[in-house]
C-alpha cells in the first residue's frame, strides 16, 4: 500500500498567486461540499480584510444553496449575489433561476468566489458568467468527498474529474457529516491525492471540520483549512 | 345442406367465441385479419396483446395470446413498458379513436417521437361506441352524435384528427405508418403484416389506423353502413401506407 509519504513526491500544491484579486469557482459532484467550501473560502478572504463577493451559480438545487444563507452571510460582510429566500418564487421548479447579477459577477470589484451547482455539464456552467473563461484570474477548484459513492474510489474520482472539463486544483473534502473522524478523512483524502497526482492536478487544500481540530494529533503535510459547516442550516 | 365452417385463425381463443361485437361491427374484421397475420408470421407465443377501454376492450380474451387490458388511453404506455423490459416479445396495442387520439394522445404522440418498437392498431369508427355514440376526435364534419346532436360544427370543435398523417410527421424513416379500411381486406392484412414485421425486425414504431364500421351507433342498415365507410370516411381519410421501410408503399 502506498503511504502518504510516497504521494508527497508526486502531489503538488496549488498556491493562489498574489494577484490583485482572487477569482475562484467551486465545482464538483452533487453534495460534494461546493457551497461549503465557497462560503468558507469567502469568509477566509474577508477576514484578511479583502472585499469579497460570493456568487450563487447553483442552477439545479432549491435546497442547500447559498440563498437561504444570504442574509446571514451578508451580515458577516460578504456581498452575496443570490436571490434570498424571500425573493425566490416557486423556486422556478427548481433552482434553474440565475440571478441576473451573477452573469456580470466578474464586473464586481475585489475577490469573486463562485459556487457552481452540479450537473452533467460540469464546469460549463461558467459559460453563464460573462467573460469567465477569458479571465486570467479564474481558477476552477474541484471539490471531492471520498464518502460520496460517485467519487468513492480512484477510478470513479478520475472519471468524475475528467468529466468536469478544465480543473485548476482539487479541494479534498472527505467527510461523513456528524460521523466524520480524522481517520476516515485521512483515508479518503489519501485516495484523492493519489488521483490528483496521477492526473497532474495540484491540491489546493483539504478541508477539516473545525470541530475536529482537537482530534488532529500530528500536523498534516497537505495544507488543512479548518472549516465551519454552514450548509446544514441551509435547508429551505 | 350443411354449413361450411368459417376458417378460424389458429391464434383465436375459441372459448371466447362467438365474440361480443355488434352485428356489422368492423372490429371482427380487424381482429380476424390480425389473427391470420399472427398465424402467418408464427408469432402467437411471442405476442403480448394489450387492449384499451371502449369497444376494443371486448378483445381482452379474443386471442390465444398473452393479453392484458389497461385503462382508457393507457394501452400505449403499458405496451411500451413491456417492450422496453422484454424486447424479445411482440407487443400489439389495440385501441379506438378516443383512446388513441383523445385521452391517450400524449402517449401516442410521444411513443411515436421516441420511435418505440411497438405495434399499435387504432380502430377509427368516428364515434365513442361503448359509451353510447358520443363525438370522437374522428367524427366527420356535420356528423350527428350524442354530443354533437346538430352535427359536428367544425367552428366549435375543429376538424377530424388525421392520425397517421401526424404520426408520419413525428417519426423517422424506420417507422411504419398506414391507414387501412375494413372494406379492403387483403390490403388490411398486408398493412398489419408490415406493421408487425417492422417491429419484429426492430426497425421502429408501427402504427395502423383502420377505418371501421359502427352500425349500432350510426343507426345504419348494411347498405348505409358500407356507404358511409366507403363514400364518406374513405374520402376524408385517405387509405394507404404513409411511411414504410418496405419499398415505396401502397397508396
Amino acid at each position: 500500500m502506498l503511504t502518504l509519504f510516497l504521494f508527497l513526491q508526486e502531489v503538488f500544491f496549488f498556491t493562489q498567486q498574489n494577484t490583485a484579486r482572487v477569482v475562484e469557482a467551486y465545482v464538483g459532484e452533487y453534495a460534494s461540499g461546493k457551497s461549503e467550501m465557497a462560503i468558507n473560502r469567502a469568509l477566509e478572504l474577508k477576514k484578511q480584510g479583502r472585499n469579497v463577493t460570493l456568487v450563487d451559480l447553483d442552477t439545479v438545487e432549491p435546497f442547500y444553496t447559498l440563498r437561504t444563507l444570504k442574509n446571514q452571510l451578508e451580515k458577516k460582510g460578504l456581498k452575496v449575489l443570490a436571490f434570498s429566500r424571500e425573493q425566490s418564487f416557486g423556486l422556478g421548479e427548481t433552482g434553474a433561476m440565475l440571478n441576473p447579477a451573477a452573469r456580470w459577477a466578474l464586473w464586481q470589484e475585489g475577490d469573486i468566489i463562485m459556487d457552481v451547482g452540479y450537473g452533467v455539464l460540469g464546469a460549463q456552467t461558467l459559460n453563464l458568467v460573462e467573460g469567465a473563461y477569458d479571465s486570467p484570474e479564474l481558477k476552477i477548484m474541484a471539490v471531492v468527498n471520498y464518502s460520496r459513492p460517485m467519487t468513492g474510489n480512484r477510478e470513479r474520482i478520475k472519471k468524475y474529474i475528467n468529466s468536469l472539463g478544465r480543473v485548476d486544483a482539487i479541494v479534498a473534502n472527505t467527510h461523513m457529516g456528524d460521523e466524520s473522524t480524522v481517520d476516515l478523512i485521512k483515508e479518503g483524502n489519501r485516495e484523492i491525492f493519489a488521483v490528483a497526482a496521477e492526473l497532474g492536478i495540484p491540491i489546493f487544500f483539504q478541508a477539516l471540520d473545525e470541530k475536529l481540530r482537537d482530534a488532529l494529533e500530528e500536523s498534516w503535510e497537505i495544507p488543512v483549512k479548518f472549516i465551519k459547516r454552514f450548509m446544514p442550516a441551509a435547508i429551505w | 345442406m350443411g354449413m361450411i365452417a368459417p376458417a378460424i385463425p389458429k391464434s383465436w381463443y375459441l372459448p371466447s367465441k362467438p365474440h361480443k361485437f355488434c352485428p356489422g361491427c368492423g372490429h371482427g374484421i380487424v381482429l380476424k385479419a390480425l389473427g391470420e397475420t399472427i398465424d402467418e408470421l408464427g408469432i402467437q407465443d411471442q405476442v403480448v396483446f394489450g387492449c384499451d377501454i371502449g369497444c376494443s376492450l371486448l378483445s381482452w380474451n379474443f386471442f390465444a395470446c398473452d393479453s392484458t387490458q389497461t385503462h382508457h388511453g393507457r394501452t400505449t404506455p403499458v405496451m411500451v413498458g413491456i417492450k422496453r423490459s422484454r424486447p424479445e416479445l411482440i407487443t400489439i396495442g389495440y385501441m379506438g379513436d378516443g383512446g388513441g387520439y383523445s385521452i391517450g394522445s400524449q402517449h401516442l404522440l410521444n411513443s411515436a417521437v421516441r420511435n418505440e418498437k411497438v405495434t399499435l392498431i387504432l380502430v377509427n369508427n368516428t364515434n365513442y361506441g361503448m359509451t353510447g355514440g358520443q363525438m370522437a376526435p374522428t367524427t366527420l364534419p356535420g356528423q350527428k352524435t350524442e354530443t354533437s346532436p346538430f352535427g359536428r360544427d367544425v367552428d366549435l370543435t375543429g376538424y377530424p384528427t388525421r392520425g397517421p398523417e401526424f404520426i408520419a410527421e413525428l417519426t423517422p424513416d424506420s417507422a411504419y405508418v398506414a391507414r387501412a379500411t375494413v372494406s379492403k381486406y387483403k390490403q388490411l392484412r398486408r398493412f398489419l403484416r408490415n406493421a408487425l414485421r417492422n417491429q419484429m425486425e426492430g426497425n421502429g414504431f408501427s402504427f395502423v389506423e383502420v377505418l371501421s364500421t359502427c352500425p349500432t351507433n350510426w343507426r345504419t342498415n348494411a347498405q348505409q353502413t358500407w356507404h358511409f365507410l366507403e363514400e364518406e370516411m374513405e374520402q376524408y381519410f385517405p387509405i394507404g401506407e404513409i411511411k414504410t421501410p418496405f419499398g415505396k408503399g401502397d397508396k
Partner: protein
Amino acid sequence: MPKIFEANKKAFITGNEAVAWAALAAGAEIMFGYPITPQNEVMHYWTRLAPEYGKGFLQTEDELSAGFTVCGAVQSGKKAFTATAGPGNVLMQEPFGMAEAMRLPLFAVIQQRGGPSSGTVVYSQQEVTLTTFGGNGEGHRIVYSTATHQEIFDYTIKGFNAAWKYRFPTFLLGDGYQAKMREPLEMYNPEERGIEMVKTYPLVGLEGKIGEDREPQHLCNIYSLEEELYEVVMKFAAEHEAISPELVEYEEKECEDAEIIILSHGVVSRAADDAVKILRAQGIKAGYFRPITLRPFPQKQLREAINRRPARKLLIAESAYGQLDRLTKQEIYGETVAIENLFMPGVGIIDYDIINKVKSIL
C-alpha cells in the same frame, strides 16, 4: 447478479441517491420516471448508474405514462419502479389503481412536497391520504413511511420484496427533506445481510407453447357484473387483512408510563424522538409512537401503547392538516384517550414545536 457494493460501505449521500443505490442493490431492472421536484436525483443517479450495471431507464412523457410503463414492465416479469411527488403522485393514482386492481408488484417512491396543487417543491406530509387511499379503490396497498436515509435504503429493498411477495402496490413515502438532506448510511448487498430477494416472474410473455404447454394469459381489470367485482374486492380485502400482522411495523419508546404519547411518522418522528428525550429530562412523562407502515396501520400496537398506563393524551404531530390524524382515528376508533394535535401543513416541525405544544396541553 453482480455485487453492487464490494464491502458494506458507509456513504454520505442524499435520500434520493439512497433510493437509486438501494434499487440497484435490490436488483431493480428498469426505472420509468418523469421530472418533478423533489425526487429528481432518484432519476439523476439511476441514469448515471444504469449503463454501468446494465439497467434500463425511460423518461416518459408524463407521470401517467411513468406509472403505466411500470405496470407493463412488472407484468412482463421485470423488477421496475418509479418515483414522484405532489401533482405527479396525483396523476399516478390512475396507474396505481390499476396495479391495485390487477395486483401488480409495482414499487414507487413518493417524496412529498407541499400541496394542494403545485404547492411548494420543498416539503410536506400532505400525501399521506393520497398514497394510502388514493384512487377509486379501497387502498389495498403497502406504505412505508421512512425517517432516515438508512431506512430509505432498507425499506426500498424491503419494498421491492413486499411488492413481489404480496402483489399489492408498495410505496416508500418520503418527503422533500429526506430527499435532499445529506447524512451517512451503510449501503450493503441484501444477500449479505441474509435478505433473500423475492424472485420475479412474468404475468404475460410466459414460457411455453400456447395450447400445448400452457393456456394463454388473459389479464383484465374490468368486470361485467356487480357481483364479480364484489368477489374480487372482498378477496383482496381479506388477503390484505390477513397479511397485515406480518407487515405492520412501528417504533415505540417510553410508552410504559407515559401520560402523553406523541404520535408522528416519517421525518417528524425525529423531532418527536428528541422532544420526548427533552421532556423526560424535564420530568414530563412523554412517550413516542411511530407507525412505520401507514398501510397497514399498526392499530393493535398503538391501542396497546395507549392503554398501558393508560395515557391521558395522544398528541398527533404532522406536517399536514390532519391526514395522519384522520388515519389514526379510524384505526383506533373506540379508544377514549384525548386526542390533541399539532398540524403544520407543509412546514417542518422541530422538537421545540412539539415541546411547546405538550406543555400547553398538559
